């Protein structure tokens, strides 16, 4: 197929998808208002067609990227002949147009899945859910097909057939060049990392999946069906989205750790913050829905949280793509910002309008039995999480705000975020430990004392032990003793639960422990997630408070010493690869005088037909143990003299951050795993409905 044919096929698929999405949005809404099943069936077909056509469009773009159809501008910008196949594929989400297409495609497929999942249930909500999802889909498809650069065409869509405006279609991934370049620029070298293959995918899966709970929330508001049905229906979507937001954070941090080469994994960069904010509000949502399900409270709050999470997800994309805030991630700066802002404003206004109109139906069914109860600790947890999200948001948008007010862009850096969020997160960690100790509804001082005594004693012992081994930084001592406190409470929770089952059902201890988790998946899956978070905190605290580093310029044969490690520089190695030139420093590592292995930090030089696009990247070398990472950066070199400048860092306990994420994923899967009793209840409900209609 020629490049023109591919571009036409891809673009027309998107244009058709846009028309079908707009139709589905209107038809599903009208069908529900007028109770017209034919129209809803037609809207359903339109949704399935959108999923099919966007899949076709993605297929066409991937095929063009792999076969290097450089006449298509996106292909010429994102790939080149030397690039490995893996990065030809990941170029799909490496640039703005491609990532918007990826978003639209995921949303189209998710919408089709929602339709299939709900073919025989939620019949009152479903048409409005479909309508909302189709509007969101249409927004992204409009960006891909007809959205023009507002600075060229004004704030109006540009008809693609108008040649004068065709060039201003900023989001079209199938835009053609006037000529065929012999080679392309290639994907930004910073993105040529296996972590970057997976990070955007997980991040987008998380962002996009949150559209589903939000669409159900809007439908519940619209229909007035404001019981917890929408929450129970979307529970797995919420967990799915949260899991992928978490994985997005993990892979993003790993990428920053090995690819950006500054020694850390988190720098409070605006785009990092953009991925953290929806995660924080989504975490708050996952907790507060339990209060609504159990107590019929926090109904408005839950709606607000799901809206905030959705808006913050879109804001993340807006920040990454608009270039309004300087960031290491702003790979595709463009003029789509106003479109995103308009969409955000419209969503927010519609939500507030519906909420205002339904406030009388959102009365709380219960009130707090006691100020010291698990409910109130959940409330506090929510305030802390949302507080952290807002503090992060404020720091992130501060440059924009300051520029608007004073005309000067004032950037707030890591110290601000550490100072504000550090204590907030410490409080959160303590709360993770306190919360399980407090019973639902009411706790007495006597019970609290009994439950708190052992964890508190363990944390005091941990603090004293840390001081005894020479740890003096008070924040490190506080953080680690908080970690000990939390791990003890969770351990006790498992222990007591197992004993309770053992006594109640005469099960042996192993069976009781297994049954405890399998029969209370949500509760104990949640506790396992908490263990994962705490392991992560160990990694963060260790690497933040106890990092040590040194820098040295070495001739071959010379060594540099850092704590127990001796790094011997053996010489430089320069070699070309298909896509870049690599310079490697060969190092031998000794620990307490014993040779433990070799490391090779690297600098890669990527050349491009466009000299402005030529770029170098740093590939760090890391030796990981359970206690610490030896992290070495080739900071500079002189190839004629054969010398190298090495930055050597010891990052204590970092591996626990990655292990913590693994545990978190395991816990989430346990919590999300279908419960046979839940399934039984569902079958029961369906039979009841079927018999009722008979």
């Amino acid at each position, binding site marked *: *197929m020629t490049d023109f044919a591919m571009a*036409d*096929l891809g673009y*027309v*698929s998107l244009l*058709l998808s846009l028309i*079908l999405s707009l*139709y589905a949005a209107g038809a599903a809404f009208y*069908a*529900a208002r007028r*109770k017209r*099943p*034919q*129209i*809803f*069936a*037609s809207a359903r*077909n339109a949704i399935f*067609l959108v999923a099919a*056509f966007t899949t076709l469009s993605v297929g066409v773009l991937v095929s063009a990227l792999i076969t290097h159809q450089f006449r298509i501008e996106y292909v010429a910008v994102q790939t080149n002949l030397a690039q490995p196949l893996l990065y030809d594929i990941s170029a799909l989400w490496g640039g703005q147009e491609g990532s918007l297409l990826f978003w639209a495609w995921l949303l189209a497929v998710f919408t089709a899945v929602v339709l299939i999942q709900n073919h025989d*249930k*939620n*019949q009152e*909500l479903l048409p409005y859910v479909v309508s909302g999802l189709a509007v969101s889909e249409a927004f992204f498809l409009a960006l891909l097909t007809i959205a023009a650069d507002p600075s060229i065409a004004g704030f109006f869509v540009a008809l693609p057939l108008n040649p004068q405006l065709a060039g201003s279609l900023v989001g079209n991934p199938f835009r053609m060049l006037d000529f065929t370049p012999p080679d392309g620029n290639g994907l930004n070298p910073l993105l040529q990392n296996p972590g970057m293959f997976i990070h955007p995918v997980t991040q987008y899966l998380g962002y996009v999946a949150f559209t589903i709970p939000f669409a159900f929330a809007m439908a519940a508001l619209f229909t*007035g*069906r404001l*019981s*917890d*049905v929408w929450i129970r229906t979307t529970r797995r979507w919420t967990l799915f989205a949260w899991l992928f937001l978490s994985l997005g954070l993990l892979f993003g941090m790993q990428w920053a750790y090995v690819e950006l080469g500054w020694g850390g994994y988190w720098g409070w960069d605006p785009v990092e913050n953009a991925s953290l904010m929806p995660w924080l509000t989504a975490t708050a949502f996952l907790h507060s829905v339990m209060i609504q*399900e*159990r*107590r*019929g409270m926090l109904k408005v709050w839950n709606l607000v949280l799901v809206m905030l999470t959705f808006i913050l997800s879109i804001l993340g994309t807006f920040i990454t793509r608009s270039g309004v805030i300087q960031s290491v991630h702003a790979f595709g700066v463009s003029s789509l910002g106003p479109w995103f802002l308009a969409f955000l404003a419209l969503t927010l206004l519609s939500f507030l309008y519906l909420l205002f109109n339904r406030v009388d139906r959102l009365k709380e*069914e219960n009130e707090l039995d006691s100020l010291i109860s698990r409910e109130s600790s959940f409330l506090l947890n929510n305030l802390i999480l949302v507080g952290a999200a807002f503090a992060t948001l404020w720091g992130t948008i501060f440059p924009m705000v300051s520029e608007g007010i004073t005309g000067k862009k004032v950037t707030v850096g890591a110290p601000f975020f550490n100072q504000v969020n550090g204590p907030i997160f410490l409080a959160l960690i303590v709360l993770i430990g306190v919360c399980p*100790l407090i*019973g*639902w*509804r*009411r*706790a*007495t001082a*006597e*019970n609290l004392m009994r*439950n708190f005594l052992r964890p508190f004693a363990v944390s005091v012992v941990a603090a004293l032990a840390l001081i005894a081994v020479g740890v003096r930084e008070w924040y490190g001592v506080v953080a680690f003793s908080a970690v000990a406190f939390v791990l003890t409470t969770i351990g006790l*929770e498992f222990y*007591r*639960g197992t004993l*309770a089952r053992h006594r*109640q059902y005469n099960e042996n201890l192993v069976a009781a422990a297994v049954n405890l988790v399998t029969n209370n998946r949500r509760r104990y899956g949640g506790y396992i997630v908490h263990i994962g978070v705490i392991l992560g905190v160990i990694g963060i605290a260790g690497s933040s408070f106890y990092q040590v580093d040194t820098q040295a310029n070495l001739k071959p044969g010379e060594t540099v010493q850092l704590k127990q490690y001796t790094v011997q520089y053996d010489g430089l190695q320069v070699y070309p690869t298909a896509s870049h030139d690599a310079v490697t420093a060969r190092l031998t590592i000794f620990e307490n005088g014993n040779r433990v292995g070799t490391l090779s930090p690297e600098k890669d030089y990527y050349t491009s037909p466009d000299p402005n696009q030529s770029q170098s990247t740093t590939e760090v070398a890391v030796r990981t143990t359970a206690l610490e990472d030896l992290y070495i950066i080739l900071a500079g070199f002189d190839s004629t003299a054969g010398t190298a400048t090495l930055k050597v860092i010891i990052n204590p306990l970092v591996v626990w951050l990655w292990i913590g994420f693994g545990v978190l994923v395991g816990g989430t899967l346990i919590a999300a795993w279908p419960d*046979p*009793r839940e399934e*039984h209840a569902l*079958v*029961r409900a369906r*039979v*009841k*409905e079927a*018999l*009722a*209609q008979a």
Partner: protein
Amino acid sequence: MVTIALAVMIIGAFTLVAYPYFKPAREFDVSFADGADPVLENLVVQRDSTYAAIKDLEFDHAMSKLSDADYKSLRGKYETKAVGILQELDGLTAAQKRRARPTLSDEAIERQVQQLRGGAAKTTRCDKCGVIAGARDRYCAKCGAPVNR
């Protein structure tokens, strides 16, 4: 070639979207309603959350998070609440009940559930009071006697 492909796409899409309009409404299994009366649904949700609250109280008491006195007073409170909700549910007019959840016996529902779950139509009754037991019940929901299978 591409023109033909595009034409097929457009015509195919139009046909699929238009097709349902030519079928009679009765052929579609869409009611645009969840079959529940909002008042009844609300009461059922309240009833279930009150049951869940009692279950939580039992669990927290077993895990020593609630004192005996608190457990007793809270349990009493939620039991009174549950009774109130159940009375309200009973008090709904017969017409409302029919519209929302027709008068179906638990037995009829359980039988259907058993059939749907692979035809294992064996139903178990309580030896003591004769009430049908759920598939996973270990104790009778009515009298509390152990269920023998």
